[in-house]
């Protein structure tokens, strides 16, 4: 409301039910904290913590390369290979899913809706559970990890790709159609150039996530650096835990830097 050129600014009205929300929150926290046994730690906790920290600062450098195999470098290579192959597989498989789930491609809303639902179903599935299932199928090892990552990444990549497809400018496609191009030519000359940078960007982003996932797949026996880490933890070989953690941190930092650099150039 304007009066003599000044605007009356009212205080924003507060939600009258907000006390209910606060009470619900308090009750939620009471419930949560009452159910957790905050007692009964190992008496050795402090000592182990110190050994781990000491292990991280005096890593077992000999483990970096062992001539007979099963060393840090090979474990990291394995992890990297799992994530590369998993990402490539999902980046290829998710393309049809993306077009299925994109709203502007299909004429009926329920088609894209069902595609989106399938993708979000895959997304909610934890990859480590998928890896457990693939281990049953192809046996323990890196290949099970590859398949788990490849299938699991479809959920997220498919959704991101679909968003990219939905953002397509129809202009070039229509212009090509008007000058007599067929469907395939339209796809190749109008759609692909528009979506390719986005697709590559998201693929690299997912690759960064997959490298992190691949480091934990070994925990259940699906290859990579996780297996020696769990082994070192259970045998209390702290210097080895230290060097493996260090290796993982360095590898992921380098991958993030490279991938971030390429993505910046793409967009």
């Amino acid at each position: 409301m304007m009066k003599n050129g000044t605007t009356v600014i009212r205080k924003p009205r507060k939600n009258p039910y907000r006390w209910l929300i606060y009470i619900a929150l308090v009750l939620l926290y009471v419930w949560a904290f009452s159910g957790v046994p905050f007692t009964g730690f190992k008496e050795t906790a402090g000592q182990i913590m110190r050994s781990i920290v000491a292990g991280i600062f005096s890593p077992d450098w000999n483990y970096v390369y062992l001539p007979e195999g099963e060393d840090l470098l090979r474990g990291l290579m394995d992890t990297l290979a799992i994530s590369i192959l998993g990402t490539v597989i999902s980046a290829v498989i998710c393309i049809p899913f993306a077009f299925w789930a994109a709203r502007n491609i299909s004429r009926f809303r329920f088609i894209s809706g069902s595609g989106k639902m399938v993708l979000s179903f895959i997304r909610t599935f934890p990859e480590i559970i998928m890896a457990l299932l693939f281990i049953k199928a192809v046996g323990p090892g890196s290949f099970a990890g590859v398949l788990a990552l490849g299938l699991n990444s479809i959920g997220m990549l498919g959704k991101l790709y679909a968003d990219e497809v939905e953002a397509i400018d129809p202009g070039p496609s229509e212009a090509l159609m008007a000058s007599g191009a067929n469907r395939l030519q339209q796809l190749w000359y109008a759609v692909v150039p528009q979506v390719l940078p986005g697709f590559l960007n998201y693929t690299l982003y997912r690759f960064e996530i997959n490298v992190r996932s691949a480091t934990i797949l070994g925990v259940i026996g699906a290859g990579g650096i996780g297996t020696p880490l769990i082994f070192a933890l259970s045998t209390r070989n702290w210097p080895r835990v230290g060097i493996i953690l260090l290796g993982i941190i360095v590898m992921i930092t380098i991958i993030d830097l490279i991938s971030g650099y390429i993505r910046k150039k793409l967009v």
Partner: protein
Amino acid sequence: MKTPLPTSAKSAIHPSKPPTRMKHGLTAVIILVLIWASAVQTEASFSKLVIGLPNMLDLLRDMFPPRWSYFKNITNGMLETIRMALIGTTIGGLLAIPVAVLCAGNLMPSRWIYFPARFVLNLVRTIPDLLLAALFVAVFGLGPVPGILALAVFSVGLIAKLTYESLETIDKGPLEAMRSVGATGTQLIIFGVVPQVAAQFTSYVLYCFEINVRAAAILGLVGAGGIGLYYEATLGFLEYDKTSVIILFTLAIVLVIDYVSMKLREKLL
């Protein structure tokens, strides 16, 4: 009359040369070599997959129909999972506030503070939550507490990163206005900074909570409490019809929490 374009105008029209055929070819070769090397390293083989598929189908057949009676055995595990996610996210969110302020370039006086802070934050964010949980289990023993700690550390990394990026985009106007009328540092933060980022911060915490529920569901695999413990038990005894109950229950809970959290976040922003 046509005049030749001066070179500067030409370069303005074509700001950069399109990459040559050679460069594209080289990129393709590098990618193919990477894929091939990865396939060799992981011993990927299509035939192994085809041979393994019947096993997989057997597995799926064993999983259905799910044995619904197992449901009541795992509700406690599920509740513990949600508790762990809730407490872990809360601790992480609280710790993330000072960390985010330390990392924000516009609030800290010197880059000698915020560069090291960001560096440490990035290092923390490289460690996956399951590895953190495995570490904490080694330190504290089995149970939900190591899981909660792992989630808390992971949450600090994520929430602090998102929050400091929001902090750096806040509007300077209110701050300058307050400083000009003599507000102290604490007053600046409480009345100038907090109102600008509070909604975003809450949204990040909710987002992190969604991620943490999923993470908490698998932390049990390394002995850190929650529903994940039951995977080992049922898969070890080949009771796949029970495993499928766990999977479906987890999916349902995750979907419900995601939906509620998404609605709340939409309301916030």
